[in-house]
């Protein structure tokens, strides 16, 4: 088994309205130091394989095909195990 973690974030330069709203909320409760805030998605996957290279290749395909929309999102992933 290999555990994988995928992080999907709104691309830099693309407006993240949720991030802007949460940043505004932090400012309003006294956390003025928050200069920027981006909200993304965090996904945990368990992969039924022990072949790390294959796992990585297929995980990348999953990100490109479904998990992220690369028009507006960036992704990165980590593999463990």
């Amino acid at each position, binding site marked *: 088994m290999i555990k994988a973690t995928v992080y999907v974030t709104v691309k830099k330069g693309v407006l993240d*309205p949720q991030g802007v709203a949460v940043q505004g909320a932090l400012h309003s409760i006294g956390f003025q130091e928050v200069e920027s805030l981006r909200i993304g998605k965090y996904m945990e996957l368990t992969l039924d394989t022990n072949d790390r290279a294959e796992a990585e290749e297929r995980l990348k395909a999953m990100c490109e095909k479904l998990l992220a929309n690369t028009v507006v999102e960036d992704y990165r992933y980590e593999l463990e195990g």
Partner: protein
Amino acid sequence: MKFAVLVFPGSNCDIDCYKAVEEIGESVDYVWHTATDLSAYDCILVPGGFSYGDYLRCGAISRFAPVMAEVAKAAEQGKFILGICNGFQILTEAGLLPGALRRNESMKFRCHDTVLKVVNNDTPFTREYGKNEEVIIPIAHGEGNYYCDEETLETLKRNNQIVFTYGDNPNGSIADIAGICNERGNVIGMMPHPERAVNTLFGSEDGKRMFTSILKSWRDSHDTASIS
């Protein structure tokens, strides 16, 4: 002429689309998302709603529904494809139209009439409108904020692919874009709901001409042989 209205789990404007086609007196069927043959249809309507719960992203899962391979084939064949609201999101996710729809800038779900400008009335979907005519068609979405990169925007402008723009931008879309078509002009996606504006009882019948435009375009390409 034969219309198909696709139905995904979570579609909720399918009946409106069906009724809109009935309103212009044409034949229409609901087609379930597992269908693998659209050859009987001349126009495919991809309706609004929350297909597959909009899980992950709007349209992200629906685009892999079996019927979508047939939609791609129909687009290739030059058939008319109209994606409305969630249907527009599905068509962008499927790569049949460029760009993506993001969360509204205001973070609010906006549900009201909008004034749209018909920027391109030279498409099979808009030929019954005047150039730059202003029409009233309602919106109802939380994620209709159209985005594409600069280069794509230039391409859209150069090819006259921007079909509708908002008079008063309700969601933060770049260049006030409300609807676009593909380069060939047979696939269109738009966030506003023309099917909800086909009768004055609804407050506006400005959307009806989209359906009659499609019919006219189809007749032009199919009746020629019988006339001559």
